[in-house]
């Protein structure tokens, strides 16, 4: 269940980090915004005076929209920053959100906010996951998605190819924030209790680790990463207090043996596999023909 919820946030982050090349350490902040706004919609007024008691899907939409709006505002301010500086700015954003929530008393502040209805059933999460994957897949394989990839690959070349670099980054950030927000809503209605501590920096880092572990620029990698890394700490309960050490070691071993992550830019689909095959074949042909032209020019040289 938690893996399915994490997956939504990871997919969003994957678009930003894996496909657009922007690292964010503040995605827990977007999740928090989604969670709190979503919960505000659904909590019944009898448990919390400010609650609206609306249906779950209203919560999802509102949570996603609120996080998207936050993403847009943050993007306006920070997206002109280069690489590492953007990363630091998102880190600050995530922490700021947590500290603000710590002090908002209507949501219980740091003591937490109980009484959120349980709505994140397994079928609901599965449907959300499927929709999230399909939509992300479609975006990545559209001109907008290709523009994001171009920005990741070579910003200057993207610009002179007529790509609005700022716009592409902004689109990626907003979509990514909406995904994180929706994940937050599901999270709130799964835990039925919210506390700002849940959205600390370690949560953001966890998401980033999953994306890198799964492989940058691969949706199937993100899916695998989310499933494995969310489940792993539970499976490792047998190791008792050592489990987080084993978890860390497992991540390190994978990253050393597969520096590009589990899937690294490759998709585990029929068309993805075909693409890898085609690339491999093309490389062989290329090698052969380069050797051939070398031979040919040697021949000419010999005659002369």
């Amino acid at each position, binding site marked *: 269940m938690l893996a399915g919820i994490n997956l939504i946030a990871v997919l969003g982050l994957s678009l930003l980090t894996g496909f657009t090349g922007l690292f964010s350490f503040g995605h827990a902040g977007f999740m928090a915004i989604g969670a709190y706004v979503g919960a505000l919609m659904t909590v019944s007024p009898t448990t919390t005076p400010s609650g609206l008691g609306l249906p779950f899907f209203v919560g999802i939409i509102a949570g996603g929209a609120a996080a998207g709006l936050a993403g847009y505002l943050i993007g306006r301010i920070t997206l002109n920053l280069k690489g590492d500086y953007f990363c630091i700015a998102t880190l600050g954003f995530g922490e700021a959100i947590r500290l603000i929530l710590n002090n908002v008393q209507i949501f219980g502040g740091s003591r937490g906010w109980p009484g959120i209805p349980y709505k994140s059933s397994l079928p609901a999460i599965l449907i959300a996951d499927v929709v999230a994957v399909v*939509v992300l897949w*479609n*975006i990545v394989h*559209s*001109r*907008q*998605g*290709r*523009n994001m*990839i*171009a920005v990741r*690959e*070579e910003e*200057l*070349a993207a*610009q*002179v*190819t*007529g*790509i*609005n*670099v700022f716009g592409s980054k902004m*689109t990626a950030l907003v979509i990514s924030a909406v995904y994180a927000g929706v994940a937050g809503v599901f999270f709130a209605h799964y835990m039925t209790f919210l506390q700002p501590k849940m959205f600390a920096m370690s949560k953001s880092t966890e998401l980033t680790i999953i994306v890198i572990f799964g492989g940058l*620029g691969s949706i199937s990698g993100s899916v695998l990463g989310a499933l494995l890394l969310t489940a792993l700490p539970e499976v490792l309960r047998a190791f008792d207090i050592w489990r987080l050490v084993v978890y860390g070691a497992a991540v390190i071993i994978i990253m050393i043996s597969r520096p590009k992550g589990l899937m690294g*830019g490759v998709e585990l689909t029929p068309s993805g596999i075909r*693409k890898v095959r*085609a*690339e491999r*074949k*093309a*490389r062989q*042909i*290329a090698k052969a023909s*380069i050797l051939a032209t070398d031979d040919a020019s040697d021949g000419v040289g010999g005659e002369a």
Partner: protein
Amino acid sequence: MGDLLQISNLTKRFGGLAAVNDVSFSVPEHGIVGLIGPNGAGKTTIFNLITGVYAATSGTILFNGQSIVGLEPYRIADKGITRTFQNIRLFKNLSVFDNVLTACHRSAQYNLLESALRLPRYRKEEKNLHAKAEELLSIMGISQWRDLEADNLPYGLQRRLEIVRALALDPKLLLLDEPAAGMNPDETEQLMSLIARLRDEFNLTILVIEHHMDLIMGICEKIVVLNFGVKLAEGTADTVSNNPLVIEAYLGKTEAS
């Protein structure tokens, strides 16, 4: 025929250094113009100013009679100016085909929602984009490499792919920054005929920076010479190569005189 590009009194300062100082010249429509000068003369800076990568300190750049100074680079590309780079800048990890497909993006109109839901317009236009990219690859004779990662292409073909990617924008003005760098005489000659062919087939105007004098002298109808950010001379290959200032810049002053 009128001038497609008019540059007047263009100046770019980096701190106290005037990388480009009061340079004026024009590029006639459908012409091939060469921009030459010793290293550090400000040639690439002029390209960066035209494409909006740098903001000019002063001066005007008119394209089709409209000022393009201060526009974002992508807007300038939209107007029909694109370029290649001195140090090749391809989308390295993408296949040859994807490099070109990405650059075709301006030929489609569908919006993000249509992409996310794969609505009919997305399908239709995406099909056209694929067809266009395939066509460009085959016109330029690199179809056989379509699935190869751009980074793994032989060097000469990487340069060619960069030109193909630029063509995918349907540009009016193509700026080539040292397209023959690192090429042997054979390849340079092929490139020369390719440039001439491109102009006719794609109805282009071309401005080219180059150090290979035979290429410049061979295909350019007009040559602009720069040194230390200042324009030294302008004219046909003959007038330029006999200009004493140009000879001095390239060969130095004769001590005896």
